């Protein structure tokens, strides 16, 4: 193909050029059309959720439901504290619990996984490949398979009804180790570590001052996923005290109240969407970079 095209007359070239030009203009239109259509589809449910959270009760009951709100009201938000007043715990407590649990879990998870990823990618010991194989295998498993046995362990080590129920099981997740190991192998050369070691940096120093800054895109991405998962997690039958419950558990309680509670449920949902979005805005630019290393080994 190449040879044939190489020997072209100037005339032909010009025509090819003009053809491409018009095509790309049409292409531009198609791009715009496709992006807008797909973009609409991806945000519409969100807009609908926000709109619904501002609907007064009579608009919520209209059938078929309307998309936009006609007379917006913030009554759904204002009534939230009252709705929960019979639960003896103020709404702020649930919000605090959610934030506390999510932030603490994510930080511990990142540090632990990064340390493991560092060792798995840079140290040699027997069974290293086996561990990595198991990690990939573990990525495939759904939480439901493990729910009951995990419950047995949680009750076995006597941490039921403590914050640890949220934190500890999450630490077994393997996505963080997987992503960060791939990233370290792609972006942290042995020579860099050797140089640091010759300059007298110890093990911890190398980890904190060299590895962690270099793999920043990877751990920011893992932060995003971890935050998202912990934020939405509902522990099964391991939390009983009302003052230890998190927002997702409240949402289930509110939705159990039927269709009249739709507005309140949407209001909590909208509140619940905000923190992950903030985390995303902070880590957003790094996601693509971190993902590119996920495919290194495929």
């Amino acid at each position, binding site marked *: *193909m*190449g040879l044939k095209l190489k020997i072209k007359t100037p005339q032909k*070239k010009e025509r*090819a050029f003009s053809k491409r030009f018009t095509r790309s203009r049409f292409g531009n239109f198609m*791009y715009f059309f496709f*992006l807008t259509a*797909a973009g609409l*589809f*991806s945000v*519409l*449910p*969100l807009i*609908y*959720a926000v709109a*619904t959270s501002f609907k007064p009760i009579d608009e919520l009951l209209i059938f078929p*439901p309307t*998309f936009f709100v006609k007379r917006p009201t913030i009554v759904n938000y204002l009534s939230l504290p009252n709705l929960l007043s019979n639960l003896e715990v103020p709404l702020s407590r649930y919000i605090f619990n959610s934030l506390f649990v999510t932030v603490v879990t994510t930080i511990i998870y990142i540090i632990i996984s990064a*340390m*493991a990823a560092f*060792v*798995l*990618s*840079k*140290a040699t010991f027997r069974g290293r490949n086996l*561990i990595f194989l198991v990690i990939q295998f573990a990525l*495939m498993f*759904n939480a*439901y*398979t*493990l729910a*009951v*046995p995990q419950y*047995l*362990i949680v009750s076995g080590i006597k941490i039921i009804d403590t914050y640890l129920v949220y934190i*500890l099981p999450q*630490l*077994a997740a*393997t996505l963080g180790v997987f992503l960060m190991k791939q990233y370290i*192998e792609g972006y942290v050369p*042995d020579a860099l*570590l*050797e140089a640091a070691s010759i300059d007298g940096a110890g*093990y911890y120093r190398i980890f904190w001052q060299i590895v962690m800054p270099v793999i920043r895109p990877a751990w920011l991405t893992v932060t*995003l996923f971890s935050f*998202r998962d912990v934020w*939405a997690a509902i522990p099964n039958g391991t939390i009983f005290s009302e003052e230890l419950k998190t927002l*997702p558990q409240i*949402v289930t309680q509110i939705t159990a109240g039927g269709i009249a509670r739709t507005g309140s449920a949407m209001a909590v949902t909208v509140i619940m*969407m905000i923190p*992950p*979005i903030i985390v995303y805005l902070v880590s957003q*630019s790094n*996601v693509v970079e971190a*993902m*590119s290393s*996920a*495919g*290194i*080994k*495929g």
Partner: protein
Amino acid sequence: MRKNKHRGIESLKSRYGLMFIAPWFLGFILFFAIPIIQSLLFSLSDVSLNNDGLATKFVGLQHYRYALLQSGAYTQTLGTAVTSLLYQLPIIVLISMVLALILNQKFRGRTFFRALFFLPVIIATGIVMDILFMTTGSMSDSTVNESLSGNMFDVSDIAAFLDLPAGISDYVEKAISNIFDLIWSSGIQTVLFIAGLQSVPTSLYEASKVEGATKWEEFWFITFPSLSQVTLLVMIYTMVEQFTSSRNPMIDSMYTLMKGGNYDETSAVLWFYFALVGIIMGILIWAYNRFLVKRWS
């Protein structure tokens, strides 16, 4: 593919290494390895609740036999799960590839659009997802859907007009009625494709430009073959995600079964399910490498 052998730098003596890996490894053993073995044991025994907790009695493959041969419900749900994946997979791969191709170009507002398509990945988990899908209906007959696609065009009319075979028009109709679901499941795949596109050497494009290749040729002879590994990754990811999503009919029915206290049966069905998923994925990966990738390289 990089296959570099790490000799490990001198300072990383195994003693320190062990210390570094220990916290994660402990958590992994305690909350993954032990539970997974336990659930395998559950699937092979009769589990009953008594005062001391759970009592197990080994019964061998009885639960597997029951679930597969005697109870027709599971095999039916399994069929639904597999067929729905078969129609989702190609569309998700197509949507995310096209999105990635567009989002990889330089244009104003690119960052905004990239963020837009990743948004569902961030917020659509667990309870938020359930609520969004519950209140907007099962999406196929939702308000949003009707006010958009329903008013703009009727799919079956178009299909009749174009005189398409029934199989294809069914497929298209199914895809359009689930368009939210499909676009919402394409976020991570799009990012993977963008990452893949960025790793294609620009020299290839420069060379093809010099030789006068059209955009179309550029796509088919450079971009598409270069993406073959990423495409495989995307396919694997999509399969894992769809098969283990809590909205998968199989997982959903298992969840209700588990809530009813039927731990042994649940474990058996789930183990069988994962084995089957593994086999299906294995076959697809093999077929992909055998029939598609070989041809390009």
